[in-house]
């Protein structure tokens, strides 16, 4: 796995900006890499902040590697679902840049609160991609310690995790862990649909009044299952932040460089005590909501094609090729690594055992429950009553 931090510190030769373009176009959208692979040196956002990245060639290649690997592993999971090995899968197809850009912007000490689609962020946290697959296979419900990985368990109830993130960020303040470069920050992931939830709006209120060191990272992928953005909002989502008293900004969510720059800045502002902000990563869910969904019922092919032209990976590849940062051998090697890792993932998914039925009684309460113990004992006895059967 490519685990290099492609930003922040400088290692090796810096890639000089090889193409420049003024920040024209949509002033509401921070973009540093066009769909055609043209590099924009820097952009001053509507917030007055100048956004830029200063990556080495190696770091650019690292981001490309992340994007390809994340897409390939996601495709493998979709295939596993089609073959009946996963019960369901929520694909991130199309959202790779939003997740890799923001995921790589996190510093080690930062805490992430994902939805159920942040497989790319998980990967960038250095977490084994097998970890969430038990949930989708139906052999567990997550089962990891959020504090061990600085990555909360997947949350399926829409928007609920934004409050958890806010509380966690309040705790950072209470622990006095802001105000320096080593300060901690939190990122809360959610989607455009979630912005209609009460919990998300309450999280905005709380984060504002308690000056919580956090970033609300909204991947606006244009759809909440079948419902388009227009069913959730009358105004651009990032503008909601103003009503809650903190900055909001829209970034091209298919541009890994811009997403990285905007997220890194917002997180650093938060860790230095400047409070919350909202990032709207403008992107598109290329696939279905989940493998149970049929998007042809609610969106037209031409729309999907238009977004296909803004693909987050091809633009990085075009840039790397044009600037001769990577050659054919590199691309082939990345593809080969992706193939290898997806095969490895598949093998391990197939090897996941079903849990013993009696384990359903485990971990309901930290201190246990006599009534539950009784029920477990009755269940075990019942199961044992089947002659010659282990279960």
């Amino acid at each position, binding site marked *: 796995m490519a685990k290099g931090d492609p930003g922040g510190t400088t290692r090796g030769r810096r890639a000089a900006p090889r193409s420049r373009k003024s920040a024209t176009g949509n002033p509401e959208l921070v973009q540093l890499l066009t769909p055609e692979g043209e590099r924009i040196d820097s952009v001053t956002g509507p917030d007055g902040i100048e956004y830029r990245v200063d990556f080495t060639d190696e770091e650019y290649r690292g981001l490309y590697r992340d994007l390809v690997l994340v897409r390939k592993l996601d495709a493998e999971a979709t295939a596993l679902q089609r073959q009946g090995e996963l019960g369901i899968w929520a694909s991130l197809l199309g959202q790779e840049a939003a997740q890799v850009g923001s995921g790589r912007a996190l510093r080690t000490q930062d805490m992430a*609160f994902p939805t159920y689609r942040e497989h790319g962020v998980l990967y960038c946290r250095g977490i084994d991609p097998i970890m969430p697959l038990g949930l989708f296979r139906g052999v*567990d*419900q*997550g*089962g*990891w*310690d*959020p*504090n*061990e990985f600085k990555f*909360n*368990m997947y*949350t399926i*109830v829409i928007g*609920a995790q*934004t*409050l*958890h*993130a*806010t*509380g*966690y*960020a*309040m*705790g*950072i303040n*209470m*622990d006095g862990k802001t105000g320096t470069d080593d300060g901690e920050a939190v990122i809360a992931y959610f989607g455009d649909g979630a912005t209609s939830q*009460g*919990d998300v709006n*309450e*999280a905005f*209120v*709380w984060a504002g*009044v308690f000056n919580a060191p956090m970033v609300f990272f909204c991947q606006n992928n244009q759809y909440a299952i079948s419902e388009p953005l227009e069913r959730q909002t009358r105004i651009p989502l990032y503008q909601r932040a103003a009503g809650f008293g903190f900055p909001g900004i829209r970034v091209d969510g298919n541009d890994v460089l811009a997403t990285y720059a905007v997220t890194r800045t917002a997180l650093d502002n938060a860790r230095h005590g400047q409070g919350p902000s909202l990032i709207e990563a403008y992107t598109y869910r290329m696939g279905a909501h989940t493998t149970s969904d049929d998007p042809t019922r609610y969106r037209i092919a031409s729309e999907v094609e238009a977004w296909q032209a803004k693909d987050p990976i091809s633009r990085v590849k075009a840039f790397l090729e044009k600037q001769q940062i990577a050659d054919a051998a590199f691309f082939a090697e990345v593809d080969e690594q992706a193939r290898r890792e997806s095969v490895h993932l598949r093998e391990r998914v197939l090897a996941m055992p079903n849990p013993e039925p009696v384990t359903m009684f*485990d*971990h*309901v*309460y*930290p*201190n246990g*429950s*006599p*009534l*539950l113990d009784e029920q477990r004992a009755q269940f075990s006895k019942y199961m044992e009553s089947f002659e010659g059967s282990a279960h």
Partner: protein
Amino acid sequence: MATETLTLGKALNTGLRRALENDPKVIIMGEDVGKLGGVFRITDGLQKDFGDQRVIDTPLAESGIIGTAVGLAIRGYRPICEIQFDGFVYPAYDQIVSQVAKMHYRSRGKLSIPMVIRIPFGGGIGAVEHHSESPEAYFAHTAGLKVVSCANPQDAYVMIQQAIASDDPIVFLEPKRRYWEKGPVDLDAPLADAYPLHSARVVRPGTDVTLLAYGPMVRTCLDAATAAAEDGRELEVIDLRTLSPLDLSAAYESVKRTGRAVVVHEAPSNIGIGAELAARITEECFYSLESPVLRVTGFDTPYPAARVEEEYLPDLDRVLDAVDRSFGW
């Protein structure tokens, strides 16, 4: 010094103070809990002494209170959340049922949410709607939550501290109409030696009928037992104290002696705590029962207007009427 006479409300306040003193990770969150000391003054003076980082006046949104407390718990804090009134807990219901209750399970035991959700519950104070409800069945029905209720100042003082010290998420139901009732509280007895939190207790021994109650109805049942004694009937009163998990060993032992059981609660009867008690007692004490387990409860209506709540709430006469019916079976 050891034993003082306190109201139930003051006993809770003193217990909360002890918890804040003993563990710097304990925090209190809720609406009006700081400067005001809570609408019932249960947190009176705590923000003044422990600061606004530990006794936090929150924005007015119950889901936000519980949801942010989950995050604080993940961070290592032990939040005590006050829900101002029973009828206002429902906006937080999703966070309580889907998040608080399930985090430990979802994490396969790697994460605990040591949260106490304090809810003043029940009627009898002449309030407008939404201020007199008994939502315990909703929470007791939910795996992953524990639910307790105190009925006297001594228990209030001890049980609140036990709940805070527990790693389980606990819904702590406070009988609001008993907040002002006084009783002796031993302030010096070590918590480690206290009567276990999730244990029922016989509060009045008797031989003829077993009354099962919790929270505000324990006092009602004790009064009924006093009245019945004048008529020559000895009612045994059991304070359940814990609604999830239920502790029914004392109840089974009692019903096997008396042969009769009456469950009393303010909550409506339909699919309520009383139904669960009746089922379990019937299963465990079937051959000892002289009559079916009877229930005296609030009616299956929304909580009514205050001017008729005395007729809605179980009282001494309705309890004694059920005792008569048990004997008349």
